[in-house]
């Protein structure tokens, strides 16, 4: 029996440590999903919270200034536009371009610009047309909007 008690204590210690690490990991990196309009109407008290926002890159808005990249994203139907500044270290993904669906992780600054620390653009590994739309003509690799 003594063996099992010892073993139980060790297991509890290990799992406890891991749970504590997990909790602090969640605190550090949790990111809220917001739409652009939700972000715009966020109360000032919530500013500075880590947010993930998705939108379509406004054609012609991508501008590189030194190592920072400025661009705008919008929601397809509403026309709400968000100005994004990306200063992260990783190169922008190849799929990031006009009209691409981009996902930006970062924080909203008080002046209304969004400071992104990472950008993902949809469709690096597979393009998937929406189901049932194996249309003959628009065979451009339009990234699917589906998975968000």
């Amino acid at each position: 029996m003594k063996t099992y008690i010892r073993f139980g204590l060790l297991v509890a210690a290990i799992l406890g440590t891991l749970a504590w690490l997990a909790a602090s990991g969640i605190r550090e990196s949790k990111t809220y999903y917001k739409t652009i309009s939700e972000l715009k109407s966020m109360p000032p008290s919530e500013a500075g919270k880590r947010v993930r926002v998705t939108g379509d890159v406004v054609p012609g808005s991508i501008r590189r200034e030194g190592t920072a990249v400025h661009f705008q994203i919008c929601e397809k139907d509403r026309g709400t536009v968000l100005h994004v500044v990306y200063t992260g270290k990783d190169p922008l993904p190849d799929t990031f371009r006009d009209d691409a669906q981009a996902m930006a992780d970062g924080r909203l600054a008080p002046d209304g610009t969004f400071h992104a620390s990472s950008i993902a653009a949809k469709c690096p590994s597979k393009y998937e047309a929406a189901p049932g739309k194996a249309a003959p003509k628009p065979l451009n690799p339009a990234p699917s909007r589906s998975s968000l």
Partner: protein
Amino acid sequence: METLGAFSLLLALALAAYAFLASVIGGWKQKPFLVASARRAVYGVFILLTAASAILVSALLSSDFRYAYVAERSNRAMPALYKFAAWWGGQEGSLLLWSWMLSLYSAIVVWTNKTKHRTLMPWVIAVLAFTQTFFCTLNTFVEPPFQMLAVGRGVTSVVDGNGLNPLLQYWLMALHPPALYLGFVGFVVPFAFAFASLLTRQPGEAWIATTRRWSLITWGFLSIGIMLGQGWAYAVLGWGGYWAWDPVENASLLPWITGTAFLHSVMMQEKKGMMKVWNMVLVSATFFLAIFGTFLTRSGVVSSVHAFAQSSLGAWFVGFLAIGLSVTTFLILRRLDFLRSEAQLESVLSREASFLFNNLLLLASCFAVLWGTLFPVLTEWWMGEKITVGPPFFNKVNIPIGLALLFLTGVGPLIAWRRSSWESLKRAFRWPALAMALTMAALLAFGVRHLYALMSFGLCAFVAATVIMEFYKGARAIAARNQMNLLRAAVELTHRNTRRYGGYLVHMGIVLMFIGYTGSAFNKDTTEEVKIGSHFRIGAYELQVKEVTDGSNPNYAWQRAVVAVYRGGQYLGDLKPERRVYAASQQPTSEVAIRRRLNEDLYLNFASMSQSDPEAAVIQAYVFPLVSWIWIGFYVLLFGTIVCLIPSKVKYAYAKTQVVGVYEREPEPVP
């Protein structure tokens, strides 16, 4: 042809369903002729799916754009290899590949067990055929690969296809999905045998002995698949990373973790008759996690940088998982009496305990990865707000687990079964501990202050020392007895007990991979806007952008920066990172240039031409220490896995509680 393809799929579905029913009824009512017909049906499914796949592949190779699938995934200018790889470049095709591989595995299992396992086989076939029926249903009704494009008035016919996603046009990526699927699909076989032996109350160890090779081969393929994915991410995606904790990556990692746990804890059952329930749970979990991974990557449930179609597939997978999990859980609960352990845990300082901790840590890691991956889904369901966790969460939990597992890799093989005394532990670990202390001291002296890196390198030295010692001790004894040199003796030693020494080689591979992963703690990077002709520095390197050239071929147009690399004033050669725009998809991609060396990689990405200065290029330069050791470690791991699969020269009678090995020969208490 397309009708023939679709018809083959439909017929395969019917045959698979028949095989399921016939084997269930045949097994239940003891009707050998029904079981025999189920066997033939399994072969039939394989032939039909091979035909369907051949039709799709020949359409791809001949660029037959009447097929929607071909038009969407292929184009004329693509090299034949990628036309072939387009088979698994999209949802429908990759599901067909899944089905086909499953039918291949099933046919092999049925063929190799023609006369063996008479009582088990009906149920094994039932499980295989049930899974096959599920995938054939998806292929026939939900994601049919043989849809044709409408041709006629008002519809422009397709002259050329869309092309395979350029990011997939890389040799590793052509191999990555099949390897991964071979790993995913393969775990159905150990599961089927486990399920069958549980159902028929066969002696518990029979299924493990039969499926040991399968488990190992499958695990090997899964490892290859994951590693190729990492190699692809490193060389193609342009950010120099190999792992990003993306949901899709995590989906492939989950069954690998439980599979690894299974391969270890199975030894407890073989040698001690312990953990029978647990092994059942692990082998089932591995199979269902493989299915779950497929579901995750195809249903769009979690958002990922990889894009997936939102399709009705999800519901089907949920249904399959629900049926499978409830039947399996029910069966395990009904057979608990049959799964009783034959031995008890005697000490925390024992081989048994080290296996238990190994399993605990692996499962904790699996759970953390699963939790983090599903976090957005869970929080949305729970709090109504979608929240995601990033790499810091995964790293925080998994780095300590990884280090603890590394430690166990060194301890486990040397610690005695049943119980070990402190005295024998001291004797066994004297040299490895010394190696660890010396390594850490040397690194401290060189100014390394990164805690995890110090621990990781120290533990790597520890484990490597234990492995080398095991080989050395065994080989020395053989060498003295047979008058041969140490190297030959080591080969002889390995050949005598391939499982054990192959296992050590796998551990050595893991050590080398850890060295590579730890190197990432010392990565350097810089982004520079450089005028043609000028220089910039990163680490010890001086880089000069000599020129930017451009050109095109039918598949893509390219722009290439020629960068001269100097170190300490010495010219080391040119690196040529490239930007491409693929004609069919108009998608730009970057082709990074990498100078791979054992100590560090110099990695260049040509981001773009400068927007303000047409005479300047934006170059991202990285120095990645020790990355090569990840790939070297992987080859060692693969080699070790293959060694494990070679039959041992000397057949050990693996009686339970029999102990072999240098440190295990403690006197057995006489009852």
